């Protein structure tokens, strides 16, 4: 197929045409850059890089060390607020809360722990099961999200979530982040910083905690046996909250 023939096909989308032309000439370099495990950047000529789609080869997960000094969780919560643009409301009962610091105590032994709780990104998410519109959804790589374009704000998912990790936006929102649209009348929760993961970065909370010099939060691909998180969960005894429910959360904890 020659370049001239391609040019006569006026219906061919310009981007596709450029791609085929580059292939026909066989000289234009197709740059392939691996940003991080699972995130590969394909660059054709000067076009903007297109990444994705997410595949089930990855299973993003997190390991949280609940024995870490509890101050570190404030850093994680604040990092989430800054990154995603929530917080700052004056009605604690109803303000959205994507991640929270929870203190637990065993009444029999008196043992205490403090841990952050956010969307557990279940393998079998009850919130997705109950959603009447399909807005509550799970990506191929296991990240559970709300498609706010079609969320009708019925809040069934909030009732279904065993972890109470979803919030309804009751008030008008202003000053949203470009990567995180938020609006009144929809449900929202931790996205595992999907916009950062897709760029090969760590979730904001993990990055902030790590930057603060702590290894209390570990993020990575649970499907990759050589990832740090896979090694850690095979080395230590970890626990997931309410494992008895069978929802298979991808957030693991130590020390609870």
């Amino acid at each position, binding site marked *: 197929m020659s370049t001239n023939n391609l040019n006569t096909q006026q219906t061919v989308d310009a981007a596709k045409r450029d791609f085929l032309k580059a292939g026909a000439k066989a000289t234009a370099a197709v740059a392939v850059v691996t940003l991080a495990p699972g995130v590969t950047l394909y660059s054709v000529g000067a076009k903007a*890089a297109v990444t*994705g789609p*997410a595949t089930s080869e990855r299973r993003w997960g997190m390991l949280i060390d609940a024995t870490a000094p509890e101050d570190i969780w404030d850093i994680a919560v604040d990092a989430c607020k800054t990154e995603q643009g929530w917080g700052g409301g004056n009605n604690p009962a109803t303000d959205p809360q994507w991640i929270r610091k929870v203190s637990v105590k065993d009444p029999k032994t008196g043992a205490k722990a403090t841990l952050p709780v956010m969307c557990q990104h279940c393998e079998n998410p009850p919130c997705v099961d109950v959603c009447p519109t399909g807005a509550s959804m799970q990506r191929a790589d296991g990240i559970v*999200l709300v*498609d706010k374009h079609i969320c009708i704000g019925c809040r069934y998912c909030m009732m279904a979530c065993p972890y109470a990790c979803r919030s309804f936006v009751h008030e008008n*929102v202003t*000053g*949203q982040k*470009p990567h995180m*649209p938020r609006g009144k009348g929809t449900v929202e929760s931790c996205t595992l910083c999907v916009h950062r993961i897709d760029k090969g970065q760590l979730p904001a909370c993990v990055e902030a905690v790590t930057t603060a010099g702590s290894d209390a939060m570990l993020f990575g691909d649970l499907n990759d046996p050589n990832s740090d998180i896979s090694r850690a969960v095979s080395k230590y005894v970890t626990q997931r909250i309410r494992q008895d429910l069978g929802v298979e959360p991808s957030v693991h904890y130590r020390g609870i």
Partner: protein
Amino acid sequence: MRSATKFLSLVVLGFAILTGGLASPANAGEVPRPNPAKAFKGTECVEPVDVMRREHMNFLKHQRDETLREGIRGQKYSLNQCIDCHAVTSPDIMGGKVRTLKPFCAECHNYAAVSIDCFQCHTGAAVPGIGQTTSPLPNGHPAVAVPATEGGTAQ
């Protein structure tokens, strides 16, 4: 007519062409024709102007699903890219301190009674680093956009 066509070519969105002809004194009492703001920068959109006028909503709707549900990013159409080029300042909006899409989108949407509002959720205000910065800035324009911290009411 020539100057009117030239003007329309500068904007991407508009329903003026659907109403046909130019406003004459006879219909001066009608609702004013939409007058969407000129792009902040750049001279060419991602598609020809007439295609964008008719199809911009389809481009965005199709791609939003691919981005959100499948995780495909960096494709041709992008709401952030719209903001990058088309967000402009207006004395009516926060004293002209913030670049927003309102002077661009809302003109035609109000005229055509389009009720969808992307910017109840998406920020319509230009934030440094949003979209791509390959298209040239207007001559003499300060390239620094003001971040939308308060009242990012874009549309």
